[in-house]
């Protein structure tokens, strides 16, 4: 599909000289997420590349839910469709999708050395670099600075503190006539996001990561039970019952409209809460997620997205070039400043412009560097099932259909069954 270049976009007053003549322009198709400002940033980034190279980029939207997105990708890739050249893939997918992606290391010229090494090794399957890290993620705690000051409450260090503070502030705010006010919002729908949230609770009480790196099922332990029991007590008290159906954006909707004190979310929500039309602009603080009791640890689940080039693309050279452009130092810097997307390049965490835009990148550097990984490497192809079993069990505990004890011993049986012949 080649045609003459007809259109050129103008960005930020940069008038690009239109290319006249017989330049063959190709069209590259990229799938970008559309959570928060993702789509806009993706379009801007690809437009910059278009101006540089003269090729067109088509951005296709994908479902917001990671679970749904994977299903869509699976169908496209199983059909060996060349419709999409570049896929935005989750940090837990490289193992599953490796067969469908080209080896990028032939195109990178060693630039992967500049990124977080754990991410690069996560994206390297059987010695092939199947994706370049685009942005990393870890769960963080958002809080309302103004309200904590108003009621003279500390920023919570432990989940127990968070619960107590949330109860106090919520009662007082409702007393004052804010009848839609809640203490804490998070992601409780039965989907991949709940796996991330629940893994944070469990890990913060030192309860492990469901399946350990050796492939042993470790989830049925007292610390994990304690964590889930604590969380189940939030539903209907400091969190609305409907939190059981929330994804990232529903939680942000409640928090950003000024109706919640605390929110668990990814860093992307920062720039949106600070946008010009946000009712809570300049009243938000971000810290690492609380520990489980005094003996626990701060834990944020490692998330983040990568860009991979499909094996079935007709333009893999160009597509790889676009991937390298989008994951480059400059573009990651722009995305960090404009959308608070975490760079995957450590040097950017010391960059003054970035720190001015997103102060907590510096303070939480360790959190981002040491995110708690979901057991996708240990469980390989079966990760989807493991995660599904885990979030369904947690959902049962949260909705009161089972207690932590029953749910976790059943989950342990199910997981052992899944991995009975090795993962």
């Amino acid at each position, binding site marked *: 599909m080649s045609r003459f270049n007809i259109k050129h976009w103008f960005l930020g007053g940069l008038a690009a000289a239109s290319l006249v003549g017989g330049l063959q322009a190709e069209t590259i198709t990229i799938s970008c997420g559309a959570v928060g400002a993702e789509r806009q940033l993706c379009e801007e980034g690809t437009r910059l590349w278009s101006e540089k190279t003269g090729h067109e980029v088509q951005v296709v939207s994908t479902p917001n839910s990671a*679970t749904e997105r994977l*299903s869509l990708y699976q169908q496209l890739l199983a059909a060996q469709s060349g419709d999409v050249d570049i896929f935005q893939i989750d940090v837990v997918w490289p193992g*599953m999708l490796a067969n469908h992606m080209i080896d990028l290391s032939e195109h990178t010229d060693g630039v992967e050395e500049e990124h977080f090494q754990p991410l690069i090794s996560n994206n390297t399957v059987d010695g092939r670099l199947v994706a370049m890290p685009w942005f990393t993620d870890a769960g963080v705690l958002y809080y309302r600075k103004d309200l904590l000051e108003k009621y003279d409450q500390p920023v919570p260090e432990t989940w127990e503190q968070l619960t107590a503070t949330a109860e106090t502030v919520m009662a007082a705010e409702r007393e004052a006539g804010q009848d839609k006010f809640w203490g804490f919002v998070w992601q409780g*729908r039965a*989907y991949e996001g709940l796996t991330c949230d629940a893994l944070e609770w469990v890990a913060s009480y030192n309860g492990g990561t469901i399946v350990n790196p050796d492939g042993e099922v470790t989830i049925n332990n007292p610390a994990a039970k304690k964590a889930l029991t604590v969380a189940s007590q939030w539903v209907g008290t400091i969190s609305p019952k*409907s939190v059981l*159906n929330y994804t990232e954006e529903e939680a942000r909707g409640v928090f950003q409209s000024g109706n919640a004190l605390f929110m668990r979310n990814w860093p992307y929500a920062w720039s949106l809460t600070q946008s010009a039309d946000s009712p809570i602009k300049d009243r938000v603080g971000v810290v690492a997620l609380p520990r489980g009791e005094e003996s626990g640890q701060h834990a944020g689940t490692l998330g983040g997205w990568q860009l991979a080039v499909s094996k079935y693309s007709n333009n893999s050279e160009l597509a790889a070039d676009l991937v390298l452009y989008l994951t480059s130092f400059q573009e990651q810097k722009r995305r960090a400043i404009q959308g608070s997307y975490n760079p995957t390049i450590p040097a950017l965490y010391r960059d003054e412009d970035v720190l001015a835009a997103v102060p907590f990148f510096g303070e939480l550097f360790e959190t981002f560097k040491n995110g708690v990984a979901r057991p996708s490497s240990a469980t390989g192809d079966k990760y989807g099932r493991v995660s599904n079993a885990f979030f369904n069990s947690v959902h049962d505990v949260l909705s009161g259909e089972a207690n932590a004890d029953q749910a976790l011993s059943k989950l342990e049986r199910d997981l052992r*069954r899944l991995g009975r012949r090795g993962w």
Partner: protein
Amino acid sequence: MAISTSAPNNTKTHDGSPSGAPLARSRPSRIHRQRLRAAWLCLIPMLLVLAAVAGWPLVRTIWFSFTDASFSNISEYGWVGLENYLVYDDGAWYGVLADPTWWQSVWNTLFFTVVSVGAETVLGLIIALTLNAQFRGRGLIRAATLIPWAVPTIVSAKMWGWMLHDQFGIINDVLMTLGIIAEPLNWTANADLSMWAVIMVDVWKTTPFMALLTLAALQMLPSDCYEAAKVDGIHPVRVFFKVTLPLILPALMVAIIFRVLDALRVFDVIYVLTSNSEDTMSMSVYARQQLVQFQDVGYGSAASTVLFLIIALLTITYLYLGRKQIGGES
């Protein structure tokens, strides 16, 4: 998913001979042979197309159900026999037929089918009887009732999903304003409500279809029975049960069977409203989850095959009974 149910539209099976008259068909006439050949020639294109679009995917699905194929690399797989269906391994049973979630989805599907088709039939009958009466603007009303049926399921399910939304859905808003509920209900996530929400949306959508088929049957009824009943002064309710219902029953049965076969395969309305939740998971949703989300093509195909067998069995039973009935009538 290669699940295609052939609609039982061939109930009028003709073997060319009136039943009950044993014909000695030792030497069919030449003309009969010619007609047979012509009939087959006309059928061949249709059979070829069916084999390509329905037969081949079905065979492939059944084939995959005996393998351990995975989406991550569909070209490499090994033969595992019946393991995807049922296997005894290390002191426990595994496979689709040993999976409690599968049986939960079978139960959900049956519950959904019985309740929704039952409600649609009753409501459709009521609407059809209403539309059968003579009144001004009947044509307009008749067209209006068809709208829910005309909207694609995926669109109407999404629409209902927003209307049922716990935070900003209009349904909760109306019920709260009327003082029927005290706090917003979580229609699609609450385990006790979600199945009923799904059934409600399906009933809203499919009742017009039932009404239309029933109405067609009603319009064919002879008027003399009714005049006679009127003269004899028989109560209308009795007339309905003694005259109308028996007369429209054959048409109603066809409509019900159509709906039952549809409801057993239900996917879109459930998936859009409640995603993969186990409270409402139907057999098709289960099969899709295994196949697509868990990449387990072998296991998912086994679930699809069991679903296909269930529906095929029901269809065959219906055809057999229908044939006997028609045979008895002619």
